[in-house]
């Protein structure tokens, strides 16, 4: 018995010994709690097929906690090897503190466009600290069955949009729009920066705001807020206490017709809703106007310089830039669109529809993501409170814009 155990132990040791040549362990920090299964069952096994011997674990933290707890872990030296990067300043700050390695010279970085890389570069472009992974696109989802039942067409202009919602409100038991203001962030990140680019002309307006040539109180920045002020009438009763999860459920259960969405919601509704999902882009002010969409560079992946497996981490990043990953990620993690230049095919019809908007419309990123969020006051949360206040009717569009501008002025 004892001899047998010794044998087994020796065999195990031998097995370990052969692997130990390049066996590394990598831990990925992320806020994508929803994707845990996909990473563990699809992405990591695919990576291991090409690169056996590197053990990767995916360890996500809830989105609202992520920045704070990652900071704490990085400062304490307990963070993982690979860091999922928020775009722009949050990651730039990490890089400046020495918590992200410069990966500009990684060969695989050439697979990404400058726009994609721009979200994770120093202002002068001299260093890149995260590999672009995916962007999200914003628009509206609709329940095709409700639209058919009521004989509705997909709205093109703002006027169409409100006509459609009026009709749903007057002629059916459905809630026109599944949106709540309890959490606040949707009102800004999905609604305001989703519908707004049509008014401030995408990049043009965004850059003017950064340079100071435009002000939040200008008509083209107030107009989307004014549109939001009208939304309150079309939400379900008590929307002030409706959470993001409530909105998702309301729409998935078929009780609401339209849902302001980020493309990441596709995966959720594919599993939770039993009707056919449709998507339309944010309505333009007038028929024939050039359309703009919020195509937000949202996720990157960088290396923790304190990682003990730097070489393995670089192997993982190189694989991240491959066509294989682009195809796998875009199709499995539905709603996140790979940023690499590879030509890939997309299976999901709604995801294909949304990525198709890139051809019809001009892309821009979320209004305040770049540069503007810098400074002591938290512009982002001010925007959330502004969106919340405008939809709740406790703040006028003009006051909300003025409040945001007062912070920009500092």
């Amino acid at each position, binding site marked *: 018995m004892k001899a047998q155990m010794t044998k087994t132990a020796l065999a195990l040791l031998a097995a370990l010994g052969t692997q130990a040549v390049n066996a590394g362990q990598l831990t990925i920090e992320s806020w994508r709690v929803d994707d845990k299964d996909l990473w563990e069952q699809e992405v990591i096994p695919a990576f291991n097929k090409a690169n056996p011997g590197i053990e990767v674990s995916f360890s996500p933290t809830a989105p609202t906690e992520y920045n704070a707890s990652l900071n704490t872990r990085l400062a304490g030296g307990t963070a993982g090897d690979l860091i999922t990067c928020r775009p722009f300043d*949050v990651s730039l700050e990490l890089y*400046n503190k020495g918590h992200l390695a410069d990966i500009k010279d990684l060969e695989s970085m050439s697979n990404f466009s400058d726009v994609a890389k721009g979200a994770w570069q120093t202002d002068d472009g001299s260093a890149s600290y995260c590999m672009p992974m995916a962007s999200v696109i914003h628009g509206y989802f609709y329940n095709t069955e409700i639209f058919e039942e009521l004989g509705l067409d997909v709205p093109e202009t703002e006027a169409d949009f409100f006509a459609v919602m009026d009709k749903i409100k007057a002629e059916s038991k459905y809630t026109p729009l599944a949106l709540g203001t309890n959490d606040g962030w949707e009102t800004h990140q999905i609604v305001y920066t989703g519908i707004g680019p049509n008014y401030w002309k995408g990049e043009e307006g965004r850059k003017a705001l950064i340079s100071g040539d435009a002000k939040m109180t200008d008509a083209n920045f107030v107009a989307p807020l004014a549109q939001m002020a009208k939304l309150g009438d079309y939400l379900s009763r*008590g929307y*002030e206490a409706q959470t993001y999860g409530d909105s998702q459920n309301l729409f998935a259960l078929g009780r609401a017709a339209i849902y302001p969405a980020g493309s990441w919601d596709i995966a959720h509704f594919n599993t939770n809703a039993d009707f056919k999902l449709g998507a339309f882009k944010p309505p333009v002010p007038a028929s024939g106007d050039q359309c703009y969409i919020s195509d937000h560079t949202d996720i990157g992946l960088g290396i923790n310089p304190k990682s003990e497996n730097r070489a393995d981490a670089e192997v993982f990043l190189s694989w991240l830039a491959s066509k294989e990953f682009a195809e796998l990620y875009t199709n499995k993690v539905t709603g996140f669109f790979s940023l690499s230049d590879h030509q890939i095919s997309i299976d999901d019809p709604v995801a294909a529809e949304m990525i198709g908007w890139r051809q019809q419309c001009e892309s821009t990123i979320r209004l305040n993501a770049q540069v503007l969020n810098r400074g*002591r006051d938290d512009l982002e949360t001010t925007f959330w409170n502004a969106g919340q206040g405008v939809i709740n009717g406790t703040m006028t569009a003009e006051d909300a814009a003025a409040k945001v501008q007062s912070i920009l002025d500092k």
Partner: protein
Amino acid sequence: MTKAGRFPWHIVVFVLPGFFIYTLFSAWPLLDTLILSFFDQNDTGARWFSGLDNYRLVLLDPDLSAGFWNALWNNFKFFLVHVLVQNPIGLMLAALLSLKDLRGARSYRTLIFMPTLLSVVIIGFIWQLILSPLWGVSETLLEAIGMANYFDAWLGKESSALLTLALISVWQFVGIPMMLIYASLLAIPEELLDAAYVDGASPLRIFWQIKLPLILPTLGLVTILTFIGNFNAFDLIYAVKGALAGPNFSTDILGSFFYRTFFGFQSSLGSPTLGSTVASLMFLVILAGVMVYFWLVQRRLHRYQL
């Protein structure tokens, strides 16, 4: 027999473990926080002494101080609701429970005390569901008694969110004042009550003029415990409204304000030094409250030898 006046080593031996643990886990972190609040730091983590600069920022700076004063004022409202609702209800329940021939007193006692034992996360989740305008039962219940019109998204409105959260907290913690008051009511000697009864005092008069003065020290204790608990509160707000304490910071109290300052939130990054300042201010507020209580209230309380 040993020599009188020998150094009492046994006292040292008995005190040391407690002293050690208290110093390590309570006194030292508190002291360190107070020290840190006088420092400032830059992006690289280098720290330097900055005197009262942080305090000036938190208390007076036009941009930053608004958040602090808002949180402090909300915290006072939160405390006030507890004093005005939780403690009177606790007193009433304790008085009812101490009635001699109340049937099922033990079951009531256990049931009312039960929520105190539950995790705040569970309490927050349950009440969010109960009050949810979409799936909650409260609208249906109000409908059943013909008051559906009074239903509102209480947790989501600036005007009512803080009050609602305070009442949820009252519901959870009402068992503690009840138990403390109940215990001191039981400690009142029978002879006193019998004497009052023989003298012809009505039950109400016995309560107001015999029992209540005797339990006043306990009421004072309950109030100061509530004060300390409320000004350290954080968990319920965080569980229900998140770190942003919305809508529009209307449910922001010192605990959640501290969390955002120390750990950061979304695009704003946390600052350990500024966070320490907020934590020190919380400590000072509580210290001031407790001192006021000891000097103005405790000393005037008349204790009766029972």
